[in-house]
């Protein structure tokens, strides 16, 4: 992967390329931004540009290919061992840094999910981050940079990555999956600008079942107790898809809220359900919709706390049908 092959992030590429060209590469970077938008690709491209025999990350020379296969002796990648990066990992890696680079002009160290470092690990890294021995480049990657110690953040040059615009994600979805624009729109709108999220969505659920789920949901009324209980049953049945279903509900009521606020249809997630959204918004107002959205937020908290799913769904649906 060269810089040019990475989608978007034009400015970040410029920053790194310029730093490379001017010999002003910092010794420690923090690539911060949501998951699945290309931070790691960028770090690998940077690594290639440094080791490359032609000094441009050509992708063909031996050094570049070693980076691609992650078997370059001067590339060190630190990942969480289990849930966290532990102090032993940091110490082992610091011993490596004491050695001179073998093939490349400098050693390169990538720390993935840097925010998972334990407090001990993070503190042990501080001195290295401030004044690394020899000529080392450290790249920390994080989607939750606010969870890093301030002292860690403070020692890195920050490089924030932005979410991808919806249109870019939508275009890629259509190109790679061959789906229609109404469908790619739904996936892109719920992707938070992340390719990983957009491509990772269960398409059967988000594209096919979504319509049925919403049809059942909006068909409920406060009088229809039995269908409500049945639906709760159905929702509670599968623990793994439940969060996605709740997201679908949230997106729907959000669309209703936006419609009540007089936003244009182009801002809707469920573009294909315009009529239903308008129909529902005719019988709701801002405060009733906010209450329903609140109920959805609340039920997520409850599920995180492992409350009885069936019960939680029943209560939720009664609130949504009110």
């Amino acid at each position, binding site marked *: 992967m060269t810089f040019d092959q990475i989608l978007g992030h034009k*400015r970040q590429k*410029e*920053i790194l390329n*310029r*730093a490379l060209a*001017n*010999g*002003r*590469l*910092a*010794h420690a970077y923090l690539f911060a*931004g949501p998951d699945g938008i290309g931070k790691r690709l960028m770090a690998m491209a940077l690594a290639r540009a440094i080791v490359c025999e032609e000094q441009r990350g050509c992708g063909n020379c031996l050094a570049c290919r070693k980076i691609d296969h992650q078997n370059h002796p001067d590339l060190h990648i630190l990942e969480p061992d289990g849930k966290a990066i532990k102090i032993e990992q940091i*110490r082992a890696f*610091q011993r490596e840094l004491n050695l001179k680079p073998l093939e490349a*002009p*400098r050693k390169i160290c990538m720390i993935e999910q840097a925010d998972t470092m334990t407090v*001990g690990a993070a*503190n*042990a890294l*501080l*001195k290295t981050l*401030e*004044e690394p021995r020899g*000529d080392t480049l450290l790249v920390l990657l994080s989607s*939750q940079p*606010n969870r890093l110690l*301030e*002292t860690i953040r*403070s*020692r890195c*040059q*920050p*490089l*924030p990555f*932005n*979410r*991808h*615009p919806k249109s870019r994600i939508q275009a890629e979805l259509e190109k790679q999956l061959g789906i229609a624009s109404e469908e790619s729109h739904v996936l892109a709108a719920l992707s*938070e*600008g992340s390719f990983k999220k957009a491509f990772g969505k269960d398409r059967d659920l988000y594209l096919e079942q979504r319509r049925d789920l919403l049809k059942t949901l909006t068909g409920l009324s406060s009088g229809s107790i039995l269908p409500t209980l049945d639906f709760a049953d159905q929702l509670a049945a599968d623990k793994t898809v439940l*969060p996605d279903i*709740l*997201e679908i509900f*949230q*997106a729907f009521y*959000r669309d209703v*809220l*936006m419609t009540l*606020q007089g*936003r244009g249809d182009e801002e809707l997630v469920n573009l294909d359900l315009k009529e239903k959204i308008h129909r529902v918004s*005719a*019988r709701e*107002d*801002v*405060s009733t919709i*906010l209450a329903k*959205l609140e109920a959805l*937020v*609340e039920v*997520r908290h409850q599920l995180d706390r492992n409350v009885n799913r069936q019960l939680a769904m029943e209560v939720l649906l009664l609130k949504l049908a009110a």
Partner: protein
Amino acid sequence: MAYLVLARKWRPQNFTDLIGQEHVSQTLANAIRSGRIHHAFLFTGARGVGKTSAARILAKALNCDEGLSDQPCGICSSCTEITAGQGLDVIEVDGASNTGVDDVRELRENIRYLPNRSRYKIFIIDEVHMLSTNAFNALLKTLEEPPEHAKFIFATTEPHKIPVTILSRCQRFDFRKIPLARVASRMREISDAEQLTISDRSLSLVARQGEGSMRDALSTLDQVIAFSGEQVDDEAVQTLLGMVDRRLLLDTVEAVLQRDSRRALDAVRRVDQLGLALRRFTQDLLEMFRGMVICKVVEDPAEMLDLVGEELKELKALAEEASLDDLQRIVTLLMKTQTELVNSSFPLLTLEMSLVRLATLAPTQDLAKLISHIESLEKRLGSTPLPKPQHPAQRPTPNPTPTPTARPAPAPAPAPTTPNPSPDPPPKKPEAPVATSTESKGWQGLVDQVKQSRPMLGSVLEHGRLLKLELPVIEVGYTKGSFMSSQLQEPDISQDLEVLTTEYFGQPVKLRVLAVDIEQQSAAPPSLVEEREAKETDRMRRLREDAMEHPALKSVQDIFKGEIKKVIPIDKGFV
């Protein structure tokens, strides 16, 4: 290829370079001049404010080949070694990597030997809070009986994690966050020396990123240079820092204060389109509202907010528009949003909901106003139901004579603000019936009649607002797009209705159904249902509403997610 970042290149080398820590450098310099030097120092303070630098400067001062001096020469071999972080008699230990008791034991072995060639053997332990309890205990023994030739300098960002026994044996120095202006002026010196072209405005934006830390600010400056080279333009700085445009923030603040949820959502849309981090936007928004709170309660907020000039003026002007209660509620809600965003599965929605809620918050009234409002309500309720305004003919004629309870005003000086001679509302007969219901051929009569033959239709009419009754035209208003108005417009139903009305009034009647906007509803006359409900529970409802609007109660709801089960009126004497 190795490039030294600015923070390392421009590390302070002398006490006078320690910007913003004059209280520390003066005390240390005095101690050195007087020769009365403590054997253990503890440097505490936030990241990047100069603790490690101060430790090295102190070490140089103690060991300079030119003699003990508060102005170490910086060129002797001792000074240059320390600057490079590799002094023979200055041992820098990373507390975080050498946390164990063995590490400290090794240290204590080392302490017993005399310095190689300098005056003192100096141990600098950075991140000292990371030592284990056992390690601290081992260290304590040394600190209790330190050899003459040993000096200790501990540095930490977290002094509360250090045992009191250790604390009590150290001379402690608290390093402060560096004021924005000082960071900016130091950065100006550095930029000039580095031959950068950068505006004061950009420099101050960059300085602010440091939040009081020189290292953070300089690291941001590195970032700026890496991107734009030595000619830095303002716009690049703004975009580079992922900063939310101030205009956009101001716009959002205004929208919230003016209860304009559409405009607030426009702002979210722009943030989304720009790909900016939603948390960052929320944080900036929160800071702006917090700034407004400070403007309200602090005489001279400039220093506290680290703001000057235009920005301060804008913030003050905005603060003028809002009440303190409102601002505090907004800050509370935004703080909640901020935490929710961290784990939100749908951050855009979280922000949208939050802004809609902020922009639809009912304005608070202060407590005094609220109480007088309740009192005047009770006064009115104590006499009679409110007059029904919708039928001009039925409106009770205002009584021009003052009420007996009214204080006799001096005749030549009538109250200038009220055209009404009496400060109290005109009195009405206590048993005054609802005006419309008494009229034989009125709206209520029609609805009653319709109800007898078509109960559903009657109840639909009951929910309508009578806008006009001037035969042969009747106009009834319903909430725009409501289910009921669409019912009435069904051809079958409207036909039935026409027959019934014609029958009732004994002449052909045109009944028109009009849409009433939600915003206009409060201006439109109430429906019969609303009238009835109002009559029954007017007092309770108003009391409840007022109670629900109370800022303290709102905060309780916001914070604890409480639910109001019941509002119980208390006796007037209580308030």
